[in-house]
């Protein structure tokens, strides 16, 4: 059913993850192509964030394979995911609130000179780059030296997005990107998603609310209880169909059922 041709940007096959005795993710297959927006939908606890955190290198998978651009990837750490061009905008935004915008933008990936055992930061250069990247996204955001805890929700989101832009994501994972935003900022994020998509970046949108993402997504992957209920092109199904998948685990016509689809729809 995949309308895209060529090698997928991301191919996750038979991925498992358990926490203690709980199977958070069970035998999940997901693909993502360049310039494609795939919405990963499901209730809280369906396993969508866990799945994406494995792709982001934040969790190690128990079983299964991940290929990025056709090459097998271990994804043992966030640093490894960054090297493969996988950027994540976490739901929490992953900001250190005691540090300023510049420090957070470059957190873990500072511009630095190596001198013996030390890596000396080029603070002026980082501030320069941060000012440029952030002003592209939000021209009114100029207080780059303010600790993040004193910034607005939209400004905090801007920093997290600026990371993905500056480090040139090929694959972008956005976990509930609009959950904390007002209508104006939500529209800005939607514009940004379209722009990134047009540049050939593959995007995973994680959401528990279908209305947020249905219009933006090319495809939906619905998860329930750690398994994939089904995958569908958004052009082939209605929002109600997808709601049925999320709530009942019922796979409609026009969708490809996954291992989590109810076998006997009533």
């Amino acid at each position, binding site marked *: 059913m995949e309308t895209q041709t060529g090698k997928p940007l991301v191919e996750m096959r038979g991925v498992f993850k358990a*926490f203690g005795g*709980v199977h*958070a993710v069970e035998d999940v297959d997901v693909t993502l192509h360049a310039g494609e927006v795939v919405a990963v939908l499901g209730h*809280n*606890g*369906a*396993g969508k*964030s*866990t799945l994406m*955190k494995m792709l*982001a*290198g*934040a*969790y190690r998978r128990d079983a299964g394979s991940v290929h990025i651009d056709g090459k097998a990837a271990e994804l043992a*750490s*966030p*640093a490894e995911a*960054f090297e493969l061009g996988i950027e*994540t905008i*976490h*739901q*929490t*935004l*992953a*900001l*250190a*609130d*005691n*540090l*300023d915008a510049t*420090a957070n933008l470059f*957190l*873990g*990936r*500072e511009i*630095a000179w190596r001198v013996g055992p*030390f*890596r*000396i*930061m080029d*603070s*002026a*250069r980082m*501030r*320069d780059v941060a000012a440029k990247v952030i002003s592209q996204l939000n021209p009114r955001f100029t207080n780059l*030296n303010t*600790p993040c*805890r004193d910034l607005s929700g939209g400004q905090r989101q801007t920093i997290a997005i600026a990371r993905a832009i500056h480090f040139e994501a090929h694959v972008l994972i956005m976990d509930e990107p609009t959950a904390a935003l007002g209508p104006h900022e939500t529209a800005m994020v939607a514009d940004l998603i379209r722009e990134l998509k047009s540049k050939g970046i593959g995007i995973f949108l994680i959401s528990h609310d279908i209305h947020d993402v249905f219009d933006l997504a090319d495809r939906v992957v619905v998860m329930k209880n750690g398994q994939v209920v089904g995958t569908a092109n958004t052009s082939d199904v209605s929002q109600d169909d997808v709601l049925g998948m999320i709530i009942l685990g019922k796979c409609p016509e026009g969708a490809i059922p996954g291992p989590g689809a109810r076998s006997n729809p009533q």
Partner: protein
Amino acid sequence: MTTESLDPPAMNVAPRDSGFNVRTLSLVGLLFVIAVTFHLLSGGLFLTARNLYNIVVQTSVVAILACGMTIVIVTRNIDLSVGSVLGCVGMVIALLQIQIFPQEAAWNWPLTVVIGLALGALIGAWHGFWIAYLGVPSFVVTLGGLLIFRGAAFEVAQGKTLAPFDPIYRLFGGGIDGALGVGPSWMLFVVIMVLYGLGEILVHRRQTRLGFHSKARAKVLRFALVLVAAAAFVATMNSYLKPRSDIGRGVPIPALVLLSVVLFMEFVTRFTTFGRYIFAIGGNIDAARLNGIPTRRTVLVAFITMGVLCAIAAVVTTARLNAGTSSTGELLELSAIAAAVIGGASLSGGRGTIAGAVVGALIIQSLESGMVLIGASSSQRMVAIGLVLMAAVFADKYLSGEE
């Protein structure tokens, strides 16, 4: 899913200008108030060259420890073992230097210092490993360390007091000959001020070239203030004479050791990625991890640094006492923590400065010294310092607007 919730981020502010911010300046102001008050109360005994020299020497040990304690606290950990580690390392140095190695050998004392530093690093790594890799809370690990290394300090020589140390080693203690002398003190002053000035100019130029507004006037003012303070310090230390002579002592060696420690730690916390990471970890460890920061290794290195600083403090302390005893350094962990906290370190992590810790140590030692001069007993001194610690943290919270 249950695993996706992250802790709420800690509410702290990192220093942007850790050497010279408002918090540190107000502590310096407090220090002046303490000095003048005790000077008046003691009938003119506090602000004398002799007393100030002694305060500097006494402060050195606490301040060296407080520098390490600050980075440990910034990572949202604590180290309760520093007094015991100091005692243990000091005993090992004493045993090697006095009983095991040949006393007359020139390599004796340098080798014992190197071994002491290595032992400090090893003990720090031991604590750091338990905390960062085995996930045991630092409070528990270092409480264990407090007992273990105090016990070990006794076991090293079955509780015996070992003396005397090599005469050269004793210079680290700041005794009669343990100072630079008048001429070299002024030379050191000139060299440091020139380097500091050049550094400021370089930074200013780079910032201007990249199009940033660099506050030149504020920097000149800051430079002038440091210049005057440093000159006053050197002049005071030079005016304290050796006994029965008119030879000025100059900057004490322990102060020189402290200065090296402070410069190094300021450099590390302000300019290196390690410094950035300890603040990020203290501010939000989940964010640090998700951004690929090696959180475990960073915490491990923080504790190794603390261990090395304990060893440096052990050298200064034993050299000053000219003896190794198994009780050396008892309760010093509390002074070090108090100094760091008075200096602005937040026990909830993500905030603290090296300069603040040094001023905090100076405040504690000045109080101690001042109360000795006005005849307060050691029990009264403990009560007073306890109260000052609580008041300082309250004032800090109140002034920084935290609820």
